């Protein structure tokens, strides 16, 4: 499967990835509407750690044997057996935080969406759960600190 890899030596802490992610995961998919009208509604699923001195973009690693999926009590968190993409179904998730407590990277967070606290994580910008899309964070990165490349293994358990 294709995975997003962050290369911290090129990360410049601009957080354009966060903006692009948040906009794509908004209702309108329009930056101005997403930020000015939808307010805190849309959430980004990539987070830049650190400061300009050293920074690192973090999103889901789509693990071979994901701890978040193992721990999910609602079945919302799943690894698609064909694509290897790990996604959370926002309707089934109850926000119990088990996934966030098991993810070794902090790449799953619990945030409020439409009045409910649910798990938020990278879905590779697929239009449907488990489907790969064109990750907007990678496109928005000005410095190839995020690359979307064919990885070597780990698609299936």
């Amino acid at each position, binding site marked *: 499967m294709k995975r997003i890899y962050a290369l911290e030596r*090129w990360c410049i802490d601009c957080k*354009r990835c966060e903006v692009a992610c948040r906009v794509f995961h908004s209702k309108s998919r329009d930056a101005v509407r997403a930020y000015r009208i939808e307010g805190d509604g849309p959430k980004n699923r990539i987070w830049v750690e650190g400061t300009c001195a050293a920074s690192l973009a973090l999103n889901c690693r789509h693990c071979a044997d994901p701890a978040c999926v193992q721990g999910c009590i609602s079945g919302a968190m799943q690894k698609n057996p064909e694509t290897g993409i790990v996604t959370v179904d926002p309707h089934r998730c109850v926000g119990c935080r088990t996934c966030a407590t098991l993810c070794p990277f902090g790449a799953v967070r619990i945030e409020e969406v439409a009045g409910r606290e649910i798990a938020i994580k990278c879905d590779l910008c697929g239009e449907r759960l488990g489907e790969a899309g064109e990750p907007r964070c990678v496109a928005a990165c000005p410095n190839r600190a995020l690359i979307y490349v064919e990885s070597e293994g780990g698609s299936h358990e």
Partner: protein
Amino acid sequence: MLDYLLPRYKVMRDDDLCIRCGVCERSCSNEVHRVDSELDRVTANHAKCVNCQRCVVVCPTHALAISKWPQVNNGSNNWTLETMQDIAKQAQTGAVLLSSMGNPKPYPIYWDRLLLNASQVTNPSIDPLREPMETRVFLGRRPDVLRVNERERTVVSKMLPQLRLDVPVMFSAMSFGSISLNAQMALAMAAEELGTYFNTGEGGFHQALRKYGSHAVVQVASGRFGVDVDYLNAGAMVEIKIGQGAKPGIGGHLPGEKISAEVSRTRMIPEGADAISPAPHHDIYSIEDLRQLVYSLKEATRYEKPVAVKIAAVHNVAAIASGVARAGADVIVVDGFRGGTGAAPACIRDNVGIPVELALAAIDQRLRDESIRSSVSLVAAGSIRSSVDIVRAIALGADAVYCASAPLIALGCHQCQDCSSGKCNWGIATQRDDLVRRLNPEIGAERVVNLVRAWNHEIQEMLGGMGLNAIDSLRGNRAMLRGVGLNEKELSILGVKHAGE
């Protein structure tokens, strides 16, 4: 005394588009932008803006543009706002005004007054997509007589060391110190891919770049930073820098705070100590002295590498070039007064030297008149902006060109002329780790390669149009040029006829 130095620029933020994401704030090393969450607004400290346009480019909603500060002039053509601001600055500080990049003043640009020829009826033009079109050039002294063994089809004459350029463009000298290692690496990688050369400048040759040595020109300048026998042998050509177009007659000064551990190691000078390049080479006071240095360098490189001498285009440049050729240089580089720099006193940059077009034509003519043109190659430098400038330079007598500003622009440079601050937001003219990181050399190299490849295609198109199938046939072929709007004297120095003639 109360004195208000006006901001030069005003940050125009379209509030309808601004999403307060803070990308501009995090991207500006000059600390212009600030997200004020209490005001729910992004504010700008206009006075700090240098118009590098980083924020304009990175803003996710393109909400930003930079405009001139709106303060109106007093109407005087003599005491302009700019002049008066300079006076105010100097009245405050007592300091020399520094600036960077090339001469911005509205001097005539002769390139733009020279038009190219094309074939019609009597001589066919050539389609470069169907026919071979040679853009390869060799730099260095040619043998006086070429002897060939026709039976064995071999060259008998001893061939002197030459540089092979697959494209007639090299990247001019920019030192590690004046630009970042990543910027140098991008140029080095591009040079390797394009089959041409980058130039280390006078700042030594960083170990990380030594693997690109076969595509490097190593420079020996008045400060002799980083020069030892390994350095001389690490490149493909050695270049003695006598002068620089942007600041003829003066040296350089890299302040101690910019001498980081890496720069110190590469320049072979103490960390934190000022790096002073003297105005002259203290061992060169005559053509004979220059000859000594040229041959010392040839000796040190076992006569395996050509030696170039770079001079600034100044008043007497043709005679100087003649002397340089006779001093044993294999390549003469002439750098015009629009050439860039990392830092120079503005008074020098803006007023000293002459345009490279005139210098180039004068040198080529002088060397021909003295029958020594083939003993030396001629490289033109100092604001080559496009493929057309290259074609014009070659038609005026250059073998190839050096360019730096254009590849830097390909790397992101927006010509803000603030290189000397060391806070280049594009990761080019800076040594600050967080800023250097902004230039991923892989991307930079791809862009520079794209630029030069595009230029080379255009050169082939123009050559074909002129009915030429090799760039060699264009060299000094001034019949391919016509001047427009130039006076007799200019035309005569350029050695071209007026359009219509």
